[in-house]
């Protein structure tokens, strides 16, 4: 425990800005991945352990596309679309049969895909850690703020994160498709009885979730090292976000991701030994006190 350096950091604008930036970066990546996970859980009712692996595939795919096309924007767009297509395929082939199964089989099947996708990544991209570096478009002097420097790429990531959060929220609230998704989450039998094809909704939601995870991976590729297994730590953080924010809730996921980002970034200064434990304790406390999370509906 090192509270004095935490207080010191709060008094120093440089440290404050540094930690805030890293908190927000972490939070935005986490939000992108976790929002997809939350959506999939909300609608399909399956906790997808393999979601972190979709993030990993997104990062690898973006890296390969960037090396191939040397255009980062093209790589991000194609990477996301690629993950979306993969998601739809994945849902139709492997997820569809397990909806009616025991929760044990669901957890285990998605776990099996962590092992499989990690090994597929090893087969295609090898065992080495890959560092991509900031794309050319962002090779410019960092922004200076109160004596500390924020790389332009960081600002880009934070902006994209907030933009996606707003778009996703509006999509689910305001559009016809969004309403269909929410209706399916509420009662798929009712939606089916009204003559809508819920299979398409399921596949679409999984595709959207995979796309969001892919976007998370694409944005993470330049600032994180890419390696097989990079998904399994992330997916646990995402579980925390989903549980704390409320399963199926996008605003909940956004706020929970920011909360966890800040807990990480400042916890590492104030409580360097237990900062990781703190977020699990948060998860446990939320589960015990309010299992549906901050923004979730109570179980009916």
């Amino acid at each position, binding site marked *: 425990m090192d509270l004095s350096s935490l207080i010191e950091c709060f008094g120093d604008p440089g440290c404050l800005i540094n930690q805030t930036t890293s908190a927000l970066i972490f939070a935005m990546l986490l939000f992108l991945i976790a929002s997809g996970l939350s959506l999939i859980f909300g609608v399909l009712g399956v*906790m997808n352990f393999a979601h972190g692996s979709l993030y990993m595939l997104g990062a690898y795919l973006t890296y390969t596309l960037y090396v191939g096309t040397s255009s980062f924007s093209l790589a991000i767009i194609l990477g996301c679309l690629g993950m979306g297509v993969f998601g739809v395929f994945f849902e139709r082939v492997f997820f569809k049969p397990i909806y009616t199964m025991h*929760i044990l089989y669901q957890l285990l*099947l998605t776990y099996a895909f962590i092992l499989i996708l990690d090994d597929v990544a090893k087969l295609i991209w090898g065992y080495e850690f890959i560092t991509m570096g900031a794309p050319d478009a962002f090779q410019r002097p960092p922004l200076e703020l109160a004596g500390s420097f924020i790389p332009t790429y960081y600002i880009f990531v934070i902006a994209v994160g907030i933009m996606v959060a707003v778009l996703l929220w509006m999509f689910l609230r305001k559009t016809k498709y969004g309403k269909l998704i929410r209706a399916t989450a509420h009662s798929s039998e009712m939606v089916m009885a009204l003559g809508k094809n819920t299979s398409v909704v399921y596949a679409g939601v999984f595709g959207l979730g995979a796309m969001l995870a892919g976007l998370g991976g694409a944005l993470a590729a330049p600032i994180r090292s890419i390696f097989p297994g990079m998904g399994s730590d992330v997916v646990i953080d995402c579980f925390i976000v989903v549980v704390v924010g409320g399963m199926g809730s996008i605003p909940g996921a956004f706020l929970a991701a920011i909360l966890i980002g800040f807990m990480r970034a400042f916890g590492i200064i104030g409580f360097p030994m237990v900062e990781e434990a703190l977020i699990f304790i948060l998860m446990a406390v939320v589960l015990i006190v309010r299992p549906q999370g901050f923004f979730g509906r109570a179980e009916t």
Partner: protein
Amino acid sequence: MWGIIFAASLIILSFVYPSEFLINLFTQILIMGLFATSLNLLVGYTGMVSFGHAGFFGVGAYTAAVILQKYSTSVGFAFGTTIVFSAIAALIIGSFCIRLGSIYFAMLTLAFNQIIYIIVIRWTDMTGGDQGLIGGIPLPGFLSTQRAYFIFTVIVVAASLVICKLVVDSPFGAILKVIRENADRAYSLGIRVKSYQLIVFVMAGIFGGISGALMSLSISGAYPDFCYWAKSAEPIFMVVVGGMNSFLGPLLGAAIFKILIAYSTMYTNLWGLIIGGVLVLIILLVRKGLADYVMEFVAARSVDGPKNLLSPKKTG
């Protein structure tokens, strides 16, 4: 009875056919088999899907290893402490977890699993942190050879399995199954559902801890990997693949898991692909554990077989 014969034949086999590789493999299988069986008390018999069982494996492994390495006591004392510590851990964790149902229960056990993992990683003085508890664990003379340790494992595992079997066949076990099938009905019949769930959670924790202790002594060290969340998926694999409706299903699952890994790692580094592939095939095609499959097949063949007792519970 059959258990004693099986255990004795394993011990005899280790003398007749003394292959270090096989003895080691069977030691691992038995340890993981006990681990998976302890989880199955929750999953198969009571219908509680825990995704944090590796936490107790870790508690057991580190308790026994630390006690033997730092305080050089007897093996019996080490196991006694292991039982006490795992029971305390399970009592604390269980009393929170049993309040929740299905996916929330799984998530909360996962959270506690990770808290234990972080404690192990951070408490460097006691556990060795990231590195694991290295430097060997002193064992008394009578356990120093691999075969002696194998025999010790056979005895401990067999005794534990007999206790588990007696419990699940007792009236207590019957009530667990009632809770699994319909907790609300059990409650309305006057059964104190939460107390039963807590007791079986502690039992599962204790046997999980014992299997962890057996593991750390067998490889002479304890590593943080033991209680990483992904480790919790291993006994679930064994329970599902072996069969959760048969008492020995998880043990069979452990054998399949360990043999698959032992042989696939000889040829390739990509064992995850093989294990994952087998899992996907079993879940999507067979849809039940192998032991359950065999038992149902046998039951279907015999005219007056207890078909209904063996049919898997309805899912959905």
